[in-house]
């Protein structure tokens, strides 16, 4: 949304440069702009409409400024100006010409406020105004805007635009917009039927909504019938996609569980430490992300999109380091007494929570999403949000990395040696204390990485970890302690089951059913999904 506005501005600037001075009717523009200086939303709406009616591209930047909330009323003379932050005060510009009008006090101007209704009319007006823009992206979003507004006034501009349009995709978008507008008029039946066909081809929720309005509104029966038919077709299509949608949700929930659990699969699964402070490691990871982003906000706001990438190693190191300290300080005294580790780490988690609470305060901290992680895209009938997509990818990446680390590296070999037979390992000259510390550090570090990802979808608060600790244990135990693949399969299974239950049972009941499922499953496979069998277990 932000960047589209930026593009619009550029485009508009180009336009102003390209077009000959529109002296013809530019004359009354300033007056109309001045008309925006009203506090009452309804009057403001009228003023916007007047401005839009001129159809003069020169007003686009004015409306964009209003949309962006930069348009202000100068108290001294009631002039409408664009105000940009400059230190403690403002720098003022003329909304039409963009000419600088010098600085002003903070209190010298008052922002012209808009509400949702006005945002809609602005969108529509700008849509109509920017259909001719040289920038394809702008034209596309303009078409979408008109599609939403369904403003009949847009029709003839659209016709002209469609005639000139070279990009096929944009042309379809424009035709759909036109169809939407047509359905909003009392155009002849044939034209409407054609329009309905065009909309039906679109076949998504917006199209559905539009057609529904047609059905609800007064229209000839033939039109209504056609609309109903189209609706039926779209709904059928969407129903088919629904299952896939659930699968995707399951996958993404599963990968969140995987991320949360995988660190535990190391500390608990491999080392046998019932690490109740695992959740807090995740939380620490999330807070490291917050710290890193604060740095970026302060020193390199331009590079904010990279903050997450920087946060990853930081979180890993911070959480891992704390993990090592914990292992050296507490855990190492408790090997062979798993239940004691439960108690100690529980006490530890209380302290870590309180520590974070005293350091960062109890309330949520803002962790922003980089542009490449925000928004969503349509895949057939699926809406896939980039954030979730990246988390899925990330989860699998972490899993693969860990697998390699344990299977292929000498460090991994040592870890497995120590966990399988500590005495023998040390007899063979492996420095078991180091290995223990590093292993626990690894698990904690991975938890930290999970924190980076979870900070994108959940609260960053001292309680963050508490929300995941139980689920994590469920996943690891369900999958089979000490088996990474078990953790993977366990996480994905539970996630998917949960998401397929949710539509029928509802969120709460769904979760309950999953828990009961786990309890029963453990009865069938007392050592989880991927249990070692045979005499190895006895030994």
């Amino acid at each position, binding site marked *: 949304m932000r960047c589209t506005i930026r593009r619009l501005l550029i485009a508009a600037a180009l336009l102003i440069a390209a077009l000959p001075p529109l002296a013809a009717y530019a004359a009354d523009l300033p007056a109309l702009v001045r008309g925006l200086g009203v506090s009452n939303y309804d009057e403001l709406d009228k003023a916007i409409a007047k401005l839009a009616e001129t159809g003069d591209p020169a007003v686009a930047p004015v409306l964009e400024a209003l949309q962006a909330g930069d348009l202000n009323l100068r108290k001294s003379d009631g002039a409408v100006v664009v105000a940009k932050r400059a230190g403690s005060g403002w720098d003022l510009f003329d909304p039409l010409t963009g000419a600088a009008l010098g600085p002003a006090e903070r209190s010298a101007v008052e922002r012209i406020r808009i*509400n949702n209704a006005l945002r809609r009319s602005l969108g529509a007006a700008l849509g109509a105004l920017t259909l001719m823009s040289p920038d394809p992206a702008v034209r596309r979003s303009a078409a979408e805007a008109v599609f939403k507004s369904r403003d009949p006034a847009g029709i003839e501009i659209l016709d002209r635009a469609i005639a000139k349009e070279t990009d096929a995709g944009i042309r379809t978008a424009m035709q759909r917009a036109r169809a939407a507008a047509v359905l909003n008029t009392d155009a002849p039946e044939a034209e409407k039927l054609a329009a309905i066909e065009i909309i039906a081809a679109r076949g998504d929720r917006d199209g559905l909504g539009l057609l529904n309005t047609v059905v609800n509104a007064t229209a000839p029966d033939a039109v209504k019938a056609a609309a109903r038919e189209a609706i039926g077709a779209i709904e059928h299509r969407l129903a088919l996609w629904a299952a896939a949608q659930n699968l995707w949700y399951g996958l993404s929930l599963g990968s969140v569980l995987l991320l949360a659990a995988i660190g535990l699969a190391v500390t608990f699964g491999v080392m046998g430490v019932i690490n109740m402070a695992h959740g807090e490691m995740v939380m620490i990871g999330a807070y490291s992300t917050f710290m890193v982003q604060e740095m970026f906000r302060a020193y390199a706001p331009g590079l904010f999109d990279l903050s997450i990438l920087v946060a990853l190693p930081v979180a890993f190191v911070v959480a891992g380091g704390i993990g090592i300290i914990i292992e050296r300080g507490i855990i190492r005294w408790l090997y062979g007494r798993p239940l004691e580790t439960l108690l100690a780490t529980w006490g530890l988690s209380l302290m870590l929570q309180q520590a974070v609470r005293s350091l960062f305060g109890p309330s949520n901290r803002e962790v922003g999403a980089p542009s490449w992680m925000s928004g*969503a895209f349509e895949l057939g009938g699926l809406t896939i949000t980039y954030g979730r997509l990246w988390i899925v990818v990330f989860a699998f990446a972490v899993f693969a990395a860990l697998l390699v680390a344990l299977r292929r590296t000498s460090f991994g070999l040592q870890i497995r040696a120590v966990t399988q037979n500590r005495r023998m390992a040390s007899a063979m000259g492996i420095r078991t204390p180091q290995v223990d510390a590093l292993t626990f550090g690894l698990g904690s570090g991975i938890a930290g990485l999970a924190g980076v990802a979870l900070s994108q979808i*959940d*609260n960053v608060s001292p309680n963050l970890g508490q929300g995941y600790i139980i689920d994590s244990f469920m996943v690891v135990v369900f999958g089979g302690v000490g088996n990474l693949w078990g953790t993977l399969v366990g996480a994905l299974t539970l996630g998917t089951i949960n998401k397929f239950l949710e539509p029928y049972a509802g969120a709460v009941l769904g979760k309950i059913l999953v828990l009961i499922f786990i309890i029963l499953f453990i009865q069938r496979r007392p050592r989880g999904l991927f249990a070692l069998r045979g005499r190895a277990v006895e030994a």
Partner: protein
Amino acid sequence: MKASYTMGAVAGLAIYAASGMAVPALAQDTIKVGILHSLSGTMAISETTLKDVMLMLVEEQNKKGGVLGKKLEAVVVDPASNWPLFAEKARELLTKDKVAAVFGCWTSVSRKSVLPVFEELNGLLFYPVQYEGEESSRNVFYTGAAPNQQAIPAVDYLAEKEKVQRWVLAGTDYVYPRTTNKILEAYLKSKGVKSEDILINYTPFGHADWQSIVADIKKFGSAGKKTAVVSTINGDANVPFYKELGNQGIKATDIPVVAFSVGEEELAGIDTKPLIGHLAAWNYFQSVSTPENEDFIKKWQAFTKNPKRVTNDPMEAHVIGFNMWVKAVEKAGTTAPDAVIDSIIGVSVPNLSGGYSAMMPNHHITKPVLIGEVQDNGQFDIVSKTPGLVVGDEWSDYLPDSKDLISDWRAPMSCGNFNVKTGKCGGKGT
């Protein structure tokens, strides 16, 4: 034999605990004010701020010379988001510390948990958070909003200004959303909304995965009628909810969401750019531009030494409640609960939105109702304000069992659930 020593220790400890707690509060030259807000556990996220604001108010008052010539002394305890502990701490404050009044609690369950204690020991509780109503106690003063001071005006706004015809009532599964949604459902139906145009959805506390539900909302919204979401989702679950809304691209211009539990504090945890235009209904916003408010914000940020620290509605509720209590005490000339309960009714103090709030006989207060739209800076733009003040309605007119009930704590009626039909005190009667 060692064992017997340790066991002896238990006895000693018990007795010590006993005597230690039996010592009556000595310092009589100060008036003690109890602060009962969770500083740890899940509720700390919201309540810690209220503890701070109370400390500030007490400090301010002492600068002004205290109350009845005595300094105020704040007694802070931590009920740790644990409901039985709330009752225990309330008892501790009233019996051990002998506080004159208690400011605290958040969420109905904590209030319900302490209610019997306050009634038994005849203490005073000022409850600063919006709640579901359906309660009126002689010992509790409800300075937060009742449903009619928040939910109903918000729905009216959406219906008039946004022409909303289709409603999603989404809430966390506990008593406040349940009741509020019951009231709203009845209200909407009374306005001629058909039941197929209302979707009610409940989620557990701290629900983190909103993909399916947001998708359902989208689906429900594509029926060709203007749709809005009325959210009574509880604090913790809001951040993931709004993040999901933002990501799935539900814009306020398409499906606006109006929330009753999302204020400046909650938004502090979210990047609000994708949420511009979504609404909240409160009785106060930090963006209220009145001298009182600007002064308050200045003091607050100075007190917390944090120029970015935000203010929110429950904080204002505490400001109002505290000032009312001070005024009532001075009017009564004593902190004795009975006297204060009598004198506080009718007391009116300036609120921060440029008007006066008065304590009504039903122990609820009058407030303006503001509707705000989320801005990219985490603040709210006030887009609507009720012309007058709204009186808190403890017994909703839209619930069959409570519409006949009223509450009036003045003599001679002095009843929290007077039934106008039967003319008897005590609910529906039998």
